[in-house]
C-alpha cells in the first residue's frame, strides 16, 4: 500500500491518463480477430509439411557432418576406400580363376608324328 502511494506521488497525477489509456482498446475488432485467427490456422496447417522438411534437412546435415569429421584427411580416406575396393575385387577375381583351374584341369598331349623326325634327319644329313 505504501509502495502504491509513493508510486502515485511519483506519477504526479499522470495515473489518470494511464488509467484512461489502459481502458482503451480492451477489445479487438471482429475483423482483426478473424485475420489473426486465419493466420493462426494457416500457419498451423503447414506444421506437418515443415516437420517433414525438417527431418530431411536434419538427415542431410548428419551426412554432411560425418563427412566433415574427416576434415583434411578426406582425399586419403577416399584413396584408401578405393584401394580397399580394388584389392577386394582383385582377390575375388583371382579366387575365381583358381577355382576354375581346379575344376577343369587341362591335359595337353603331344602327338608328334614320326615323319617330323625323319624330315629333320634328312636336313641334318644333307647339311
Amino acid at each position: 500500500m505504501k509502495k502504491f502511494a509513493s508510486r502515485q506521488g511519483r506519477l504526479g497525477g499522470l495515473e489518470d491518463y494511464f488509467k484512461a489509456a489502459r481502458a482503451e482498446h480492451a477489445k479487438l475488432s471482429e475483423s482483426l480477430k478473424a485475420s489473426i485467427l486465419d493466420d493462426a490456422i494457416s500457419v498451423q496447417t503447414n506444421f506437418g509439411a515443415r516437420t517433414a522438411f525438417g527431418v530431411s534437412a536434419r538427415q542431410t546435415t548428419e551426412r554432411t557432418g560425418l563427412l566433415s569429421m574427416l576434415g583434411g584427411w578426406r582425399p586419403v580416406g577416399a584413396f584408401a576406400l578405393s584401394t580397399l575396393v580394388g584389392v577386394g575385387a582383385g582377390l575375388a577375381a583371382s579366387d575365381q580363376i583358381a577355382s576354375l583351374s581346379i575344376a577343369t584341369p587341362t591335359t595337353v598331349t603331344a602327338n608328334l608324328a614320326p615323319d617330323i623326325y625323319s624330315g629333320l634327319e634328312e636336313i641334318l644329313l644333307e647339311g
Partner: protein
Amino acid sequence: MPYESFSKTSDEELLALYAARHPNAANELMERFAPRILRLAAGILDDFSEAEEVTQDTMLRLWQIAPDWERGRAKVSTWLWRVAQNKCTDRLRRRRSVCLDEIPEPVDDRPGVDEVLMHKHRVQVLRETLAGLPERQRIAVSLRHIEGISNPQIAECLETSVEAVESLVARGLRALKERLANRRESLGWKT
C-alpha cells in the same frame, strides 16, 4: 465442443498446445495478448490502423515461432513486447524517412461535453504527448505505466540495463508531467 478453460495454463504451455495443433489454443493466446499489443502499438504509433497491422504481424510471428519455441529461454510476453516494439520502431523510422510534412498535425481541441468523448479525448491527449517524447522514452513509459510490465522485462525488450530503463521511464514521466501540467483542468480533472 464443451467449454475449455485455459485460465490455469501458462503462456508457454498454451504455445506448445498451439504447436501441437490444439484447436482452441490460438484463440486463447490471441485473447491474452492481442489487445495489449494493440494498445501498446497504438500508444507508440498514435495511429490505430497501423497499430492493428502491427498486432496482426506480431501475432503471426508468434504462430510461426511456436514449433521452434525453446521452453525457459524467454517469457512469451517479453518476446511479444520485443517483437511489437521492433515493428513499431521500424514503422516510425519509415515514417521519418518518408517526409515529416506528410504527418498530419494532431487535433487536440475536441469538445468534451460527453463523458465518452472526454475519455477518448484524454487518451488522445496522452497519445499525442507521448508521441512527442523521444522514441525509447515513449516505449519505456508505455510498457511500464500502460501495460504494467516490470522494469527487468522492459530491459530485455529494449536490450538494455534495468538502470537505463529506470532512467528512461523517469525522464519520460518528467517530460509528460511538464507537457500535461496545464491541460488537466481542460480535460475535466481537478488539479
